[in-house]
């Protein structure tokens, strides 16, 4: 049986590799979550009121997607540095569940509401749920290091 040798992973053997990967992770989540927040602020009626949510989704979509691809790729690399540790970490499990939920939500309900010009009440609910989901992912991501 092949045994995965953690020390052979450059993230564990190269002094710069791990923090550099974390930098990509942080910058990319700022990009993806920040562009989603732009839409959420509009849905909540709290900012960008000269634009429609539809226009904001169309104008930020590519950047959100680019951010998500980089954040997930760097996240998988970080995960590979110590898979067992992460798999048994409750904060990590919560984070991954919330992340999957948030991605599905973002490309279904969130997108549909933003594109359709729904009523302010529906918009507020949709934007509020989005903010809570993404904030909880960042929070639980940090919590991994504390439990």
């Amino acid at each position: 049986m092949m045994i995965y040798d953690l020390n052979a992973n450059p993230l564990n053997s190269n002094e710069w590799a791990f923090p550099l990967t974390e930098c990509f992770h942080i910058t990319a989540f700022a990009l993806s979550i920040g562009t989603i927040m732009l839409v959420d602020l509009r849905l909540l009626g709290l900012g960008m009121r000269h634009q429609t949510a539809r226009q904001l989704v169309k104008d930020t979509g590519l950047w959100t997607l680019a951010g998500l691809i980089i954040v997930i790729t760097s996240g998988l690399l970080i995960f590979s540095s110590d898979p067992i540790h992460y798999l048994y970490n409750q904060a990590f499990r919560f984070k991954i569940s919330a992340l999957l939920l948030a991605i599905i939500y973002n490309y279904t309900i969130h997108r549909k509401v933003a594109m359709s010009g729904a009523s302010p009440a529906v918009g507020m609910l949709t934007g509020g749920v989005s903010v809570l989901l993404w904030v909880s992912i960042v929070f639980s991501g940090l919590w991994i290091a504390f439990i």
Partner: protein
Amino acid sequence: MSAAEISHAIQSIGFLTAFRESSYVYPVVMATHLTCIAVFGGLILATDLRLLGLALTDMPIADVVNGLRNWKRLGFVIMVTMGLLLGTSEMDKYYANPYFQIKMFLILMIGVHAIIFRPRVYNHPEVLDRAPQIPRVAKTAAICSLVIWIAIPCLGRWIAYYEPPKAERDAARAAAGLSQ
């Protein structure tokens, strides 16, 4: 007083000691600091990309700059407040950390960036919209902002990986009157 003694005195202030030793408040504050990067740092990136003509190009620059300004201000205040707590409560560890020092320098550069570019770019975004092309000064402001704002969280990460030379560490602890 030496830097080591001053640092030790700061982090020994009662509520900072309590904060450092708390098992829940400390990580909550750190997580809030990080969340601000995601939520409000992302808005800064979006503004910079608009100034570079790379994102949100269907809407006027003025709408992006003015529409997000108050949110970025609020985020900055929360981020700095949390950062002050995190930094001062571990002053012993941080004051001689070169990555911490560079980070503080870059935070100062945010102020310099504002002094230089606010009157020319951010205070009159409607002028940028009237120009046939996005003026070079706006693009320069955006690139400087991107460099500063991406470097700051990266240095924040690097702070955690710095190991001072043992001799230096012992000298600092001795100077602060701590046991070896």
